[in-house]
């Protein structure tokens, strides 16, 4: 009776060991899949901008920029500052953008140059017409206003985002598996030890 019990315990210990190894492997696999929230911050900035929450938009863009220093973020921040009427800040960010992106797409370069002219003018003598124009200015997006096509810089952003999405999804799934196994092993081991029979127990077969 006793020998049978010992064999049984060995078999159980082996299965617990295998489960633990699998759980550890899966857990390590999730290390490279930490969530990257640049995309969500960038989108958040855009949404807040559209809701005219300029302060919130600036804060979101700043946070996004801390994660990834894409020049276009500087441009968006410049646009937001301009909408806020903060010409000096807008001008600073337009200039930072051009410094970070010396060779922007021609269309953007042209736009930025126009905005710089506008902001300088605002600093010198803001007019009602300029204010009106500023209000009519569409929100900055990654799409060309005229053609509707995705801008090259935004293509890069999107590709980077897609890669991150994949990583994030793998991370979530791997993490779930690891969490499931860890929780299961924990609960199982706990229950197993709660069910563990005393050493040397004599068992009568019915």
């Amino acid at each position, binding site marked *: 009776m006793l020998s049978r019990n010992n064999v049984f315990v060995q078999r159980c210990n082996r299965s617990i060991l295998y489960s633990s190894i699998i759980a550890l492997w899966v857990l390590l696999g999730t290390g490279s899949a930490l969530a990257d929230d640049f995309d969500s911050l960038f989108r958040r900035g855009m949404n807040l901008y559209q809701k005219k929450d300029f302060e919130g938009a600036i804060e979101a863009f700043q946070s996004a920029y801390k994660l990834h220093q894409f020049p276009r973020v500087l441009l968006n921040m410049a646009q937001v500052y301009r909408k806020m009427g903060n010409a000096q800040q807008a001008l600073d960010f337009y200039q930072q953008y051009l410094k970070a992106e010396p060779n922007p797409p021609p269309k953007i370069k042209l736009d930025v140059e126009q905005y710089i002219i506008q902001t300088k003018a605002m600093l010198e003598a803001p007019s009602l017409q300029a204010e009106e124009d500023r209000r009519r200015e569409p929100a900055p997006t990654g799409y060309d206003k005229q053609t509707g096509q995705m801008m090259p810089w935004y293509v890069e952003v999107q590709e980077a985002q897609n890669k991150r999405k994949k990583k994030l999804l793998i991370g979530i799934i791997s993490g779930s598996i690891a969490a499931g196994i860890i929780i299961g092993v924990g609960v199982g081991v706990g229950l197993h030890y709660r069910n563990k029979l005393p050493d040397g127990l*004599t068992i009568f077969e019915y």
Partner: protein
Amino acid sequence: MPKHAGLATVTLALSSALSIVSCGEHVVVVDLVNLSAETSSVAAYYRIDTDAYHASALQSGQFQISSPVFGIRPPSSRDGTLAVQVFAYKNNLPCALNKGSTEAKLSTAGKINATAVLDVIPFAPCKANDAPVSYPAEAIIWAGTASNVWIVGKDAAVLRWDGTLFHNIVLPDSIAGTPRATWKAVRGDSQGNTWLVGDHDSAVRIDAAGNPTRLALDFGSLNQLPVTWTGVYAESGTAYLSGTTDSDAQGYIGIYSAATGKVTVNQVDKAPINLSGSSYGLYAVDCSSLNDCWYVGERSLVIHYTGGTNYGLVGIKNDATCGSPPSDISLRGVYANGTLSSVKMVGTGNAGGGTGRFIAHNGTCFFANDKDQSSSFTPGSLLAISGRRPDDLIVSGKDAIYRWRASGAALLTGYEKGTWQSASALSGGFFATQASQILYSDLAP
């Protein structure tokens, strides 16, 4: 986190937990509380619902007095209620020190805990009738040792105590006879066989492996009247049986030979015994060897067998003066140990209607004494005698149990009234039976 990830987590958690928990035994673990420190074995009788009881025992070394525990593994397919009865014993005797019970529901998997809180029971004398087994009616007992005790009785009932557990042995009709025998005597031999004899010509040998054999009878030229065998002595493959017929109370001696595999039936007054005029019912036999046997029965009949075909009648006198013979004594028990002075007999005067008689040899004759050592008459019949030693015997009968030593038979007090129809002595105590009751009592040296 996507919904399916949460679901996967839960599923994996459950499957992992179940895969590990499935390693857990489906075992009822019974903790014993209040186990006596003197315990040398623990008996467990257990069953699910109304099943027959199963029985197992923990021997010394299989439990700790400080934290006694054992497990019972029920079939995985069974649910219901597991009922457990627990008895603690010492010295291989069937007197429980503790007893208790517990139950466990089998509906849950894994380890199921149960606790049996044990009550303390006075050890000895005891009624050894606690276990959930069937105790024979009209019980007759023989104890070779404390761990080899046989109790037999009506309906061919056989109960064995092995030192830790009682076992009911159910004999088929082919062995027990039709109608089923009422066993009148049981005795073991030094080869491990146990011999049972009773009414309806019934004589059975159960070998050391537990295999029973019904012994065939060879009546030769005798009328085949049904014989009730009343006593047995066996050794080295030979058995001697005492018997009587119900219809005409004739005396019979049966001799079983391993060579023939049969019991040769002899009537007392016919060849080869030829004790003419003395064929009265015989009720007991005892031998010191196969060539020194004593048969006793009705009408003060005592036959001494000394080997071959040598059977002789032995007279009993009325008192130690070796004068006149007594009135008819229905002799029911005999003890033999090789010398005349060691031979002791018991019976009842007035053809069974009087008080008890103690018969011993005084160097000159066997004489009957109708009083114990305090000069008191016995309350009634004396029915059985068993030896601890030649000078230290146990005698049982109606409303009395005596310890018979050189100084005389002393009435043992503290026992129930009733007809103690059999007794069997051990070195440290004795068993006695009445109805279905089994008594054990220690005796001082």
